């Protein structure tokens, strides 16, 4: 494996998942990520230090997503206008420098955090995210009103966010303590 291979394998999935935030079509997303790696390969940027390469990769993906969305705006001038504007708002937010959890290597932690939720929240997340059920189908399955499903999904996401943030903070704290004292 060359350095480039390792870099590709380390960040490809993360970038792919990140792209799916703004572009739902998986094949389009894969093509877009390929183009970013081609740029990094051709310019030889992959030889830089890893933090900087990661920066190039994510910046590249965000810009390409914005361009893609702008193009969509032109192509679908009238249909799904709000949906496209919504995506544009989202990608613009991240372009301003805000980091997504997908950028912060939270992918590995999420399963444990979901496991730690109380059952009523865990089940709506599993049914909607992993089983791909619609809110109405979840309501039927659990025999509760759709509104309750929606409220639970939102509440579950809020809880997950809190738990994930705490986990990241703790990791940061531990790292801090292990690193040698400057004096």
């Amino acid at each position, binding site marked *: 494996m060359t350095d480039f291979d390792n870099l590709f394998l380390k960040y490809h999935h993360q970038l792919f998942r990140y792209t799916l*935030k703004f572009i739902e079509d998986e094949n389009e997303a894969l093509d877009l990520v390929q183009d970013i790696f081609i740029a990094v390969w051709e310019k030889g940027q992959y030889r830089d230090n890893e933090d900087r390469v990661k920066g190039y990769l994510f910046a590249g993906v965000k810009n390409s997503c914005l361009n893609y969305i702008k193009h969509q705006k032109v192509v679908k001038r009238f249909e799904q206008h*709000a949906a496209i504007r919504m995506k544009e708002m989202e990608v613009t937010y991240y372009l301003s420098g805000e980091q997504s*959890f*997908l950028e912060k290597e*939270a992918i590995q932690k*999420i399963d444990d955090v979901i496991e730690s939720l109380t059952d009523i929240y865990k089940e709506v997340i599993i049914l909607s995210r*992993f*089983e791909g*059920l619609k809110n109405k189908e979840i309501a039927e399955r659990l025999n509760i009103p759709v509104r309750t499903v929606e409220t639970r999904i939102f509440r579950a996401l809020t809880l997950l966010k809190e738990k*994930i943030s705490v986990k990241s903070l703790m990791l940061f704290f531990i790292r801090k303590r292990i690193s040698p004292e400057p004096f």
Partner: protein
Amino acid sequence: MKQYCFNIIIYKDAVLMIEETKIQNLIARYLNGECSDAEISELLDWCNLSTQNQIGFIQAKDIWDLANHTANRSDQQLIHFYRKQFEQSERSRVILIYRIIAVAAVFVVGLITTVFYPKTPVGSVQQMSVFSVPLGSRSKVVLFDGTEVNLNSGSTLTFPDRYDGNARKVTLTGEGFFKVKSDKKHPFIVKTTDFEVEATGTQFNICTYDNDPFSAATLAEGVVSLRMNNSQQAFSIKPGEKFRLNRLKKNYNQAATDVESELAWKDGEFIFKNIPFPELVQRLERWYDVKLLWSGKNLESYAYTGRFKNQETIWQVLDALKLTTRINYQKISFREFKISYKPNN
């Protein structure tokens, strides 16, 4: 007077809470793709009201996006990357060929791999392409000669990249439906671990998973001949017939079958008629990419018949089985279920 003010405050709070719940529900609907464009517009307006609203929505969506299991395709994509580079750059071809082969060699096991070797022949080395379909999905390839092949979950098809003018030969493990482009001069041959099927222009299905106790070939249209690998024994299969080899007992039978249900998988339907429980479990595992744990002679002694559409989730299938047969199930982890026998209702 005081009492009156107090009431108003409570009322205001209640309105705010209702408003908040309404937005939360709207966000949950948006995330699960259930909003009309008008509703999205409403949500967008709400986001634009304040930075706090915007961040609230974006963070909820971020967690939603994080809590997902998208298949990791990085290995396949890396090979794809090198292939693209190879096609584009003339000068570094040789190095890139080695890269592709080296990378491919690292990922031999259980992968969605499309490997392409050089387009110009090197000596007598046959250039082969490998097309694999992961568990839980199905795919379709069109071969060099125009033959169409539908591949079921967990199947691999190996075929030459370029047609060398002789017989058209491909190798299959798993299940595939072949719609062979008619060419009488150049027979189309499918090799499997147990037998070879030869056709000129027909439609047939072959099911030959390595971990199944059987392998089979079903003919929809035309004529095919089937030759056993070890005995050179040959059979001619007629339309509507199925040749089934029992790998354990080493015997076979050839009989009329229900072609429609045999081929339903290629249109995203899952039909099974009188199949034993272990076979049902195998097929569900492949179809849904799940692990189904079970044990017990009781389960084995029944034959199962049923029909599912692709859209149904594994939960719905298991629920259906639970309702109609003496089966109970329990979820163990994300993609793992335990099936048990339910003695009496």
